[in-house]
C-alpha cells in the first residue's frame, strides 16, 4: 500500500513539486509576478517529464516556458498598460 512500492522516490518528489506549484501559479493574481511563477512551474514540469523518461517533451517544455511564454505574457502586459498612457509621456522616451 505504500507509494514507494511503485514510484521511485525521485519521481515522488517531483510530482509533489508539480502539485504544489500549480495552486501557486493560480493564486498569484498580479500577471507580472504570475509570469515568473509560471516560469518556475514550467521548470518543475520539465523535471517531471525528465523523470518520466520523456526527453523530447522535456526539451520542448523547457524552451517554451523559458522563452516563448514569458515573452507573450510580458508583451501582453506591456500593451495592456501602455495604451492608457498619455501621449506626452510616450514622447519623453
Amino acid at each position, binding site marked *: *500500500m*505504500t*507509494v514507494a*512500492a*511503485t*514510484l521511485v522516490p525521485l519521481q515522488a518528489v517531483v*510530482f509533489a513539486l*508539480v*502539485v504544489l506549484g*500549480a*495552486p501557486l*501559479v*493560480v*493564486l498569484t*493574481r*498580479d*500577471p507580472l509576478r*504570475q*509570469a515568473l511563477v*509560471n516560469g518556475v*512551474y514550467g521548470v518543475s*514540469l520539465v523535471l*517531471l*517529464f525528465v523523470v*518520466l*523518461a*520523456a*526527453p*523530447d*517533451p522535456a*526539451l*520542448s*517544455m523547457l524552451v*517554451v516556458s523559458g522563452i*516563448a*511564454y514569458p515573452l*507573450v*505574457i510580458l508583451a*501582453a*502586459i506591456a*500593451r*495592456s498598460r501602455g*495604451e*492608457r498612457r498619455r501621449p506626452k509621456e510616450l514622447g519623453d522616451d
Partner: protein
Amino acid sequence: MSYLPYAVAAWLFLVGLAGVATSKNLIHLAVCLTVTQSASYVLLLTVGYVKHGNAPIFKGIPLGAPAVDPVVQALTLTDVVVSVVVVALILALALDAHRLSGTVDPDGIADISG
C-alpha cells in the same frame, strides 16, 4: 496508491479551471489556462510510462531494451509548442477587449458593442 500520478493530472486540471473561473484579469486567466493544459501533458505521459523504462531513443542503448511509449510523447511535444501560439491568440483577444472597453477585467467588458 499507484493511481496517484493520474490524480495529479486531475488536480492540475481542477486547479487551473478554478483559476479561470475566479479570475479578475484576462491575462491571469490565460496563464491559468496553461496550468490546465499541463494537466493533459501529465496525463498523457503518465499513461504511457513503463516501469524502469528508458526513453524511446535507441542511440547508445540496445534495441530490445524496455522503453516507454513513444506515441504519447509525440503528441505531447507538438502540443506543448502549439499551445503557446494558442495562448498568444487568447492574449490577443484579451488585448482586443482591453482596447475596446478599457479594462482587462472579465466582468467589466460585458457592455461593449460594435
